């Protein structure tokens, strides 16, 4: 592995990701201090560990689930403490196979984000140390943030 770049610029991140992963990573757009990336779910862990180790992204701001009815998405917001740049990684999961590899072994701060996403969307993070319900009661049977779970007054 190449040495760590402590304060990468947006262009440097783009070129590093493209040279390392080629077609497997799609860079959607870049803005000042923001890079938006789409990654297939098989590569999420590899891309994340590359971003952490080679590009020095020490912090995960959030892991978000999103139900698009025909598919689910998991969105990672990673941030670099030297430059203030954030990378947004979007990965798409097919509705019938909601599994993605956990990144909480890379960043311990992801632990509860992934638990929350699991309990609210039913997305399984493989390799997570303790994938249990966190905010809702242990006996709860639903995944309440899915679009199929209707609130009162929701069409």
């Amino acid at each position, binding site marked *: 592995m190449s040495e760590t770049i402590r304060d990468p610029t947006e262009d440097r991140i783009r070129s590093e990701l493209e040279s390392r992963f080629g077609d497997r990573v799609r860079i959607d757009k870049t803005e000042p*201090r923001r890079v938006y990336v789409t990654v297939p779910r098989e590569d999420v862990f590899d891309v994340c560990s590359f971003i952490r180790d080679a590009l020095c992204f*020490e*912090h*995960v*701001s*959030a892991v*978000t689930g*999103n*139900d698009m009815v025909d598919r689910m998405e998991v*969105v990672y*917001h990673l941030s670099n*403490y030297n*430059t*203030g740049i*954030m990378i*947004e990684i979007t990965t798409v999961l097919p509705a019938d196979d909601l599994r993605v590899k956990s990144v909480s072994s890379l*960043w*311990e*701060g*992801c*632990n*509860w*984000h992934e638990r*929350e996403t699991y309990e609210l969307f039913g997305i399984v993070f493989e390799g997570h140390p303790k994938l249990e319900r*966190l*905010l*809702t*009661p242990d006996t709860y049977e639903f995944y*309440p*943030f899915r679009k199929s*779970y209707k*609130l009162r*007054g*929701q069409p």
Partner: protein
Amino acid sequence: MADERKLECACGAAPMDTDKMWVIMGPQHPFSHGLWTLKAQIDGEIVTDAEPIIGYLHRGWEKECENRTYPKIIPMADRLCYAASMTYTHLYCMTVEKALGIDVPEKAKYIRMVADEICRIQSHLMWLAAVGTDLGNLTVFLWAMREREFFMDLNLRLCGARMTTNFPRIGGVRNDTTELFDRDVLRCVERFEKAIWDVIALVDDSSIFLSRMKGTGYLTREQCVNLGITGPAMRGNGVDFDIRRDDPYDNYDKVDFEVPVLKDGDSYSRYMVRIEEMFQSCKIIKQAMRKVAALGKNAPYRLKVPSRVPAGRAFMRMEDPRGESLMYLVSDGTDKPYRLKVRSPIFVNVSASKPLVQGSRIADVPVIMAMIDMCLGETDR
């Protein structure tokens, strides 16, 4: 680590084999400042394992938002954190503005900054009061709450409410600063800069405070970053990062302030960082109010915005009094959000309870956990 401390505490005597015991602290416990539970496993007096339990206040905030139009979410965002309500509303408005692709008027940016910093001081004073009661000094509580009351009055002058202010709007702020606010804000800040020294003296001269705070809750910089701890707790661990300075939003890049960073990594350095942040907030308020005055009374403070947000995604983050908060918005082109995610700083900070309290004495647990400044409204959402 636990074993070393055990030897140290036993004053040289051979360590005894004792049964480990789980102590359930909370949800109704004086130290918890809200409904949450800390299960601590203790071996004698030393905490060997800990597990936080949250969720008592989970009300499905993010899901509720999917059922409301964009402006109706503003009062809800106030209730995420009642001690610093304007920061979350500000963040929400910024996220929607980013999705709309609009730039708010200069004056609104400065007024929001003033409001944010007032909330930061309020929140830190509330935290200081809580630390005072946790350590058994009621005078700290009373004096910090008294100082906070002046800033509550500023809120009242600015927008007519003390706590849940409902003040920022998508595209600006609800109203211009009032004359009473202009008159009082500098008076209040200048008075505060002197008066807070009374409270600082109470804490710094107290051997109880110092012996409870110095050297407890220690984390290394790497641990702290990897656990995702943000805000003053992180800056007390030597991480030189503040979103206001390093990823500026609104006009924070146009004011001059410093980011306090201490390298000790214990409870005392987290305390010192918060105290210094209050002084820096005063500095920002003064500069921003000067800019507001320079813009004049006729400058626009609010834009008309469309009720529908174009389909797409947007996220914004900001420096909350407690850490990094982030909102991620997915819109589908209607007048209601498709998905709105809130990243709460305390949600992540409290998940780091185990490494924070492990190896410390059970009597130190309240002050260690007080240093992350619990607020359950935003943690459980």
